[in-house]
């Protein structure tokens, strides 16, 4: 898609730092308006889906925008929506739902973990190593999360994904047992 350097972001997105991926051209009668948007632009989704539930979720984020800020660093929800960098560890807790939503929308979560993340909000998305690996902190949660994803993959008959998850679970358990054997 050709990107015109003159296309501007919608007014609502003037602070957005995300790269331009979409040119939106609206023709009404003889008038043509062009806008440049990022791939997760809420204005774009609103234009495409009109009065659907995605607009409801857009409204619910917008309503919260003006009041929710991180107490520790002052990062606002609007800044997070615009893709600006986060300010501290607390931001991840305060904006947990929004961040999960944005990460999935921006395709920044490995597809094999997406289903369990979307259905069970309390489940960890991260399944890699942790600072306290030798103490198995969070290991049971990681395994739960991966088992959730495995069950969903089997229900959907996505056997390739299920096999991959099975191998990851096995590798994680072997690594844990090796670690325990080394310390005993």
């Amino acid at each position, binding site marked *: 898609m050709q990107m015109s350097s003159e296309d501007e972001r919608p007014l609502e997105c003037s602070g957005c730092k995300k790269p331009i991926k979409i040119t939106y051209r609206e023709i009404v009668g003889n008038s043509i308006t062009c806008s440049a948007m990022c791939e997760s632009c809420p204005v774009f989704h609103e234009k495409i889906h009109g009065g659907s539930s995605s607009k409801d979720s857009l409204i619910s984020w917008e309503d919260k925008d003006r009041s929710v800020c991180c107490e520790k660093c*002052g990062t606002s929800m609007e800044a997070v929506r615009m893709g600006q960098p986060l300010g501290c560890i607390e931001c991840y807790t305060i904006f947990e739902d929004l961040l999960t939503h944005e990460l999935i929308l921006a395709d920044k979560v490995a*597809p*094999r973990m997406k289903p369990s*993340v979307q259905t069970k909000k309390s489940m960890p*998305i*991260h399944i890699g*190593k942790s600072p306290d690996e030798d103490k198995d902190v969070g290991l049971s949660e990681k395994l739960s999360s991966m088992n959730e994803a495995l069950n969903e993959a089997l229900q959907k008959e996505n056997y390739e994904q299920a096999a991959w998850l099975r191998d990851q679970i096995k590798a994680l358990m072997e690594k844990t047992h090796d670690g325990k054997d080394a310390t005993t």
Partner: protein
Amino acid sequence: MTEKTQLPEALTNHTPWENSETPIWLSTHFSLRRNYSRYRFPQKISEIESHQVLDLIKNQLLSSSFLKEPVFLQSETLSPTDREYIIEHFNFIDGFGPASKSQGFIVDNSRCFLGMINMGDHLVLQWTEMTNDWEKTWHTLSQMELALGNSLEYAYLNRFGYLTSDTTYCGTGLTAQAFMHLPAIMQMGKAEEAFSGEIEEDIFPREMGGSEGDFVGDMIVLQNKYALGLTEDAILQSLHLSASKLKTAEETLRKHIKETDSPEMKDKISRAYGLLSHSYQLQTPEVLSALSLLKLGIYLGWVTNITDQKLNEMFFKCRRAHLLFTKDAPQEEIPHTRAEYLHSSLKEAKLTI
């Protein structure tokens, strides 16, 4: 250089791929991003706290047993040429952003390690592997990261993993990149086929520089798409598999070119040789493209009296900051200085076609 450099000689006297024995898969980079939970991330941290973070990390890295004679470089006091030199040497595609007082780099005599402090995140550790022993390198980097986490707790949550200021990198905080030289695939128009057929779904090809889709110098960087929702081992295995498959595809095509004695390819290589040997002015993208063809020419036996390693060295030394280290020149004379450097470097090289 008339302005004295702060960069150590180990870095300025050598280029990364000068001893490479692997002409296709040139190097692998591993980067780990970390923040400390006690402090706000660099965009929001106070000046006092950012200096505390700088001192903490600097002291630990300078006394690290994993590094060989490490040196600290304060970002703000580095000249623009020095900063650009670091970007070129370490192939740091995404750049650093503007310098501030509490930012710094740590490099060492191995020329493979780059530590960045308070640039986006409190700590970014990057290690370059050039001998294909990437498992050992990854293990070393992991051990170093573990040691740095002993003194102060990393920012970590079970749900999102290691926390970074840019959520793109949260989770493992790992960026793994394989630098591949694929002239046969690119010049024969097989890129789309190769990328869709050989690259795993959680890896993507990107450019070293320039605009999107513009694979300058036929250099493709394979990088993990996801830092979150995969284990570190899974990321590295995918990268290794994708790079290995692309390497095989490239070798197969090179063999085909040699067997068919392709006149089109001979023409391209001849033109590249002519461009580099006789042009009065040269810009970096055209030089890298031409060097890529000469490297292919060496592999096919059509260019002699020069080694692949020498061309690897030229790949870096033709870039602006590297050029300015050998000869101080005003901005408008750099293209000519570049051309002169290439003429003298290719003096002995011969085209046998």
